[in-house]
């Protein structure tokens, strides 16, 4: 006869108000197999847990059912309590009589009856619970960091400084990300390059960081502690080991008019190029799409030009370089792939998102986006830090900033706030005023969201010291009228239409998820929201973890983030990884599938349905070594415990520990009441 203890929680008044807890405890005391049944005000409290522990010892309990809140809330709590009293933690289950009973029913009689039945069901289940041991898995103490923006750089450095090996993968030719394009940063106005480039160099020089630029994640297999990742090293046509970064090839390149991605189209670059002077590594990359040689190859099959090869004294230029795949074993993955900016134009790459034709972006040259303004304001930018109109190079005397371009606009398909635009617009207004004395900046905003340390003070400074005129309202349209851009807006605070003759307009565009991030997320089995931002495991309590164990998030891949947030997330993710690496082995919940070798016929339906590829083929041989049969075998490190194999197996020769057929059967049987 089992000896099960039943503990009915009042949850203060939360349960006891609707459920007659005394009656539940009494009813359960009569239930076969129940050795002890009681109720208590707060089971999760210290005395409550003590009550459970004492009962386990005193009544020699071999199973515990706590009827209280949702197991999602306190299952861990009570299993720990059971464990400390010497009972295997997996012999403890919870009946949910709060969320699923007292909170959703008013009738006391009905609720009490239901609570009794729910608790009985769990008692019946526990009778079939088996002691289980947490699973131990070895850990590969090397981390993969995907993305070499500020978040990836921070994570890589923290990890490497903490003693871990790091593989840092960046898809562009240089690390640095969006931050390297910025002029100054809010709220301190310190130069972005000045604080970032030393970090980039540190990454390059760190003995424990392997930096792979112009590379992308091809494939990910395995599980926490034991991932195998394949990295595609894209052919940059330049041998990284031979190149010394002298730049002779760049000087020799005849194709000089390619719009520079780094300068957001405001500057030009050559076909063989480094994106910006401080690039890390300082190794040029050949843009094959624009290279004369490759164009000629595609057209005539013959190589033309070859000037860069001739110019290179190290013989580092290799036109026949191919993409190659490198494989690494890693124990954890930090995803720090960042964001892209919302496209303002009518044509949108993603269905469900629409642009703003009425803002003239792309047709009126002096309407630019925020990142382009950063390049204008940057000392190393195309105008050497002078704010000049792209159309005629004149200094704009009146400038209008429009916030929330794309953000918070359901009609455009993006309802979220991009978080950084209020701040960088204030910064732009300030920088503008510092550079164009006597200039006037206007800002159209919906709300000012300046909720960081020193942020609101910063916006106030833009308004009060630098005289930016903030107008609360939207702009309906703007168009070129001779020399000026007529900006038609509405000031909702004075309830008046406003028309501004601006020399230049800057649109603060929304932050969007990276294109094709879904493909990477799928490789990592990480879920994403409808905007393709990757999902954290818990919005409050597990903000940098994902639902895939061993995969962590840092920066704007998860949601719009500014630099301080991204860095904080990166350090948090690094700390999580170092925590993971601090032990030689990992412990995991033992809710995994197990095959009964005696029954399995090896039809491998289980293998077909397993989302994780956890089912392997195992040969069963007799003593002489003759093959008897090939059966399924579940790799406990890979199995995540969904149980799809169990429901699929025709002969029921695979079981899911913790949710066995016997346990479910017992629960269904208990329905009889």
């Amino acid at each position, binding site marked *: 006869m089992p000896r099960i203890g039943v503990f009915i929680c009042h949850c203060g008044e939360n349960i006891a108000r609707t459920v007659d807890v005394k009656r539940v405890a009494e009813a359960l005391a009569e239930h076969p197999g129940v050795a002890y049944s009681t109720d208590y005000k707060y089971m999760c409290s210290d005395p409550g847990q003590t009550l459970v522990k004492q009962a386990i010892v005193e009544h020699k309990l071999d199973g515990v059912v706590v009827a209280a809140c949702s197991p999602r809330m306190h299952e861990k709590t009570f299993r720990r309590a059971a464990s400390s009293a010497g009972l295997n933690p997996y012999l403890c289950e919870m009946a949910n009589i709060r969320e699923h009973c007292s909170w959703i029913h008013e009738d006391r009689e009905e609720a009490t009856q239901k609570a009794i039945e729910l608790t009985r069901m769990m008692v019946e289940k526990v009778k079939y619970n088996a002691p289980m041991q947490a699973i131990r898995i070895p850990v590969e103490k090397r981390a993969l960091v995907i993305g070499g923006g500020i978040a990836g750089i921070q994570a890589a450095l923290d990890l490497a400084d903490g003693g871990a090996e790091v593989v840092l993968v960046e898809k562009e030719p240089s690390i640095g990300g969006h931050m390297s394009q910025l002029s100054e940063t809010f709220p301190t106005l310190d130069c972005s390059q000045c604080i970032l480039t030393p970090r980039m160099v540190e990454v390059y020089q760190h003995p424990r960081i392997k930096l792979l630029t112009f590379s992308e994640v091809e494939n990910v297999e395995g599980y926490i502690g034991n991932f195998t990742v394949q990295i595609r090293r894209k052919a940059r046509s330049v041998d990284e080991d031979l190149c010394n970064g002298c730049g002779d090839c760049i000087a020799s390149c005849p194709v000089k008019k390619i719009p520079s991605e780094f300068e957001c189209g405001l500057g030009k670059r050559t076909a063989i190029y480094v994106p910006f002077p401080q690039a890390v590594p300082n190794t040029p990359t050949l843009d094959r799409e624009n290279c004369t040689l490759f164009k000629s190859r595609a057209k005539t099959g013959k190589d033309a030009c070859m000037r860069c090869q001739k110019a290179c004294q190290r013989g580092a230029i290799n036109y026949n370089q191919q993409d190659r795949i490198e494989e690494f074993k890693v124990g954890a993955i930090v995803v720090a792939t960042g964001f892209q900016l919302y496209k303002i134009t*009518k044509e949108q790459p993603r269905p469900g998102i*629409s642009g*703003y*034709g*009425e803002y003239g972006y792309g047709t009126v040259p002096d309407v630019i986006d925020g990142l382009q303004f950063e390049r204008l304001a940057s000392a190393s930018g195309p105008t050497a830090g002078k704010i000049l109109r792209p159309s005629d190079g004149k200094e704009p005397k009146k400038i209008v900033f429009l916030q929330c371009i794309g953000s918070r606009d359901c*009609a455009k398909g993006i309802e979220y706030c991009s978080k950084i635009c209020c701040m960088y617009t204030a910064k732009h207004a300030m920088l503008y005023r510092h550079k164009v004395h006597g200039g006037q900046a206007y800002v159209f905003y919906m709300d000012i969201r300046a909720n960081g340390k020193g942020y609101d003070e910063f916006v106030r400074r833009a308004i009060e010291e630098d005289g930016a005129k903030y107008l609360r309202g939207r702009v*309906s*349209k703007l*168009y070129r009228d001779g020399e000026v851009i*007529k900006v038609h807006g509405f000031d909702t605070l004075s309830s008046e239409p406003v028309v501004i003759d601006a020399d230049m307009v800057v649109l603060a565009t929304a932050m969007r998820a990276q294109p094709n991030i879904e493909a990477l997320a799928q490789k990592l089995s990480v879920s994403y929201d409808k905007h393709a931002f990757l999902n954290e495991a818990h919005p409050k309590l597990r903000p940098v973890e994902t639902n895939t164990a061993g995969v962590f998030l840092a920066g704007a891949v998860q949601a719009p983030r500014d630099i301080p947030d991204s860095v904080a997330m990166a350090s948090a993710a690094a700390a999580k990884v170092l925590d993971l690496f601090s032990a030689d082995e990992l412990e995991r919940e033992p809710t995994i599938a197990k095959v009964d070798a005696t029954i399995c016929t090896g039809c491998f339906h289980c293998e077909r349905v397993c989302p994780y590829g956890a089912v392997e083929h195992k040969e069963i041989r007799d003593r002489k070594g003759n093959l008897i049969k090939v059966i399924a075998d579940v790799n406990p490190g890979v199995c995540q415990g969904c149980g799809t194999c169990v429901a699929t197996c025709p002969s029921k020769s695979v079981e899911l520990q913790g949710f066995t057929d016997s346990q479910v059967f017992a629960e269904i049987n208990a329905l009889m009441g």
Partner: protein
Amino acid sequence: MKLGYYPGCSMHGTAREFDESLQAIAKPLGLELTELDDWSCCGATSAHATNRLLGVALPARNLALAEQQGFKDVFAPCAACYSRLATARHEMQEDAKLDAKVKEILKRPFSNSVGVMNIVEVLRGLIPQIKEQAVQPLSELKVACYYGCLLLRPAEITGFDDAEDPSSMEDVTRATGATPVEWRMRTECCGGSFSLSRTGSVVRLGRAVINDARAAGANAIVVACPMCHSNLDFRQQAMGQREGATEMPILYLPQLVGLALGLSPQTLGLKRHFVSTQPVLELVAAGAAKGEVK
């Protein structure tokens, strides 16, 4: 394309030339228009301004007729009619209570299955046919495409083009060989039904529209709404086009298409306007003289 044709009051009255030009281009473009039997008022202006239920029930009656008469789509060339019919369809879809109430009033079976189309939408769908049938190059003609308000708004009801930055009229115009100019007042208000009650406002608004079109280099304004036409054409005199400013001809979109198809000004009702369309016809002739006639 077979469509149920809902003329509304204006097509048989002040906007006769709209109707005439539409009928004239229908055949060559393969458009089969069958007038709804027993159609009634769409509820524009008075009804929907005074009584929401009536404002929906009136157009719904016409939609129900169309459904009964077996039409998949109703085509309402008048922008106001289009707006009312499309609004009724939309509101009944969104509001189950209203839907039930209106159906009760209608006293006839109605499953709200009929689509509603406007003139721009219909012609946009016929761009390949227009290009194919065009015999008269309108290459000398620069026109300002004027959308006004009702065709595009509210965006969730009309939905056939970008309400803030539309392009469909320009697309149709390009198909005729004429050049659409870039201008800013395309979607501004013409004053609408205040023509009689607040003529001054209508004149002021209309003047801004015409001036901007002229500044952009347009030889004519193309409209898709009888109200817009009336306000811009009829009120031009009151706008006092002065000091060398010439009059601005206002054409209906099917008139422009008809010109490209080589139809006579008479057939297209081009003689019915207050502002002479002669300058337009001269430019068409100039274009014909320049280019080869197909």
